């Protein structure tokens, strides 16, 4: 799912070796867009933008991968929460998979667990399986509405946008002076 650079670098620190400073990820999207526009589809995948459902504009501060289907890259009103819960499930699963999770992984899981109802009582006695179950339970509540909104928006995006637009979003074009100049 689309994620913020900060989360990416936290996950990377928790489960993989090596650090990605989140500051380095911020300018990445623009570089990728430039690279795509000069030679479309020259690489198997690009890091691209998530699109807002209503205006199909690039969503602020989120990174996605170009090979994902469009409806995963669209952000509707419920999607931030849905993505958060899905991420919590993935993190909990990864936590179960690795042998001795370090403090960074502990911290990451707690950051999710703390904000999901019924996920954990405290940072010390967290159970990854419970976290995943709690996240799944809340996810059920939002999933259908969110999927409907995303599918509709994704259909629109595929119809209306060119290749570059589908990956990096369309920006609202202002006509003449309207909007931009007026305060």
């Amino acid at each position, binding site marked *: 799912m689309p994620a*913020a650079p*900060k*989360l990416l670098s936290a996950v990377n620190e928790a489960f993989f070796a090596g650090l990605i400073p989140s500051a380095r990820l911020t300018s990445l999207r623009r570089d990728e867009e430039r690279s795509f526009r000069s030679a479309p589809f020259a690489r198997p995948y690009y890091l691209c933008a998530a699109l*807002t459902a209503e*205006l199909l*504009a*690039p*969503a*602020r501060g989120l990174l996605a991968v170009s090979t994902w289907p469009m409806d995963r890259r669209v952000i509707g*009103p*419920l*999607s*931030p*929460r849905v*993505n*958060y819960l899905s*991420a919590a499930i993935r993190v909990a699963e990864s936590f179960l998979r690795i042998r001795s999770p370090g403090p960074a992984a502990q911290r990451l899981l707690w950051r*999710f667990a*703390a*904000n999901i*109802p019924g996920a954990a009582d405290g940072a010390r006695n967290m159970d990854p399986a419970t976290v995943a179950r709690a996240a799944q339970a*809340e996810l059920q*509540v*939002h999933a259908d*509405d969110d999927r409907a909104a995303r599918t509709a928006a994704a259909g629109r995006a595929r119809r209306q946008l060119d290749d570059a637009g589908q990956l990096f*979003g*369309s*920006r*609202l074009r*202002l006509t003449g002076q309207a*909007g*931009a100049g*007026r*305060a």
Partner: protein
Amino acid sequence: MHDIDARLGRIRGDVPPQAHNARTIAALTSNPGCARRAIMDAAGIDKPRLASYIGFPAPFGQSQFAITRGNAFEAQVKANGCAELLRLLREQLGLPIPEVSYDDLEEVGGHRSQHLRHARTRSLLTRAAGAGGDAGTLFDHPLLRLDVGGRPVYLEPDLIAFRLGGRFHVVEIKSFAVIDGQADGDKVAAAAIQSAVYVLAMRQLLAELGTGPEAVAREVVLVCPENFSNRPVATLLDVRQQLTVLGRQLSRLDRIESLVGLQPPGLTFDLELDQAGVPHRPAAELADDVRTVPARYAPECLASCEMCFFCRDEARGQTAALGRAAADELGAVHSVQMALGLADGTLTPADDQAEAAALLREAARLRRECLGETA
């Protein structure tokens, strides 16, 4: 209205008026009796510049560290679709689990123009106010507009508006700590009045759409870090009183006409800037003009008004400069000189000073006794 605009324009001189924000609007309420401040604010004078030009610069503004800290805390609370904020709202206000919809209004299709953002805020809030249950819960960075002194002012709030049971609430995220359930009273008061500005602006917006003021709750949600951690905690704050004060202040700004009418016709605070923006007006002349408009200095001004050092200097020797408590006790005794005279009996009090004079003499006697002097 044209007359008054022209008049205020002349007072301001040949520069565009300063824009208000929630902070400056909130500051309007701190000293409602001050004509100098009222006129300067209505005319949109660049007060920091004026004050430093006439030799009394005020070291004003928020520290860069405070701003950075505030932004970092706000980003943390709002990260991942407002995950932390949702937890707080669920715990404190019983926000139902399905209500998680989040709309970001900081950009509209990659643009940040105020006009566009305001239009989008309007359309989203209209939809939310008109529709029943599920038309949006959290609105991040809505751009609101408020009429101040007959001019629309855009308010760039770092807040979230959220909707529960058909009512909007304002969420204000502040980075001062709540320690052991207690926060700095002054900071809470400042936050309350700023939130009240937003409540007022939201009510105005919804009123334009034909929705009553009760659609915006008068309790705002204040989110602050708890104790010495970064963990946010939410508190409900009733801003009813602040709303009344603000409403009165803003209507007073609208009635600025009568206040301006009392001033000499040639009054202007123009710095006479040249093409390069360098002021040419003699500072002494400008200071004289500023002095013609009466101010009401109180020590509290030091926390909220850029003109404070000028007014303090002017008010030296006045009992008002000793603070409101002392000034109230002294009643009709206006200068420190006179108070001392009354205390040692060298002056005879007038009728309206008799009570204060008796108090002063009593105080002087006690002081003498304490210091072991025999009189």
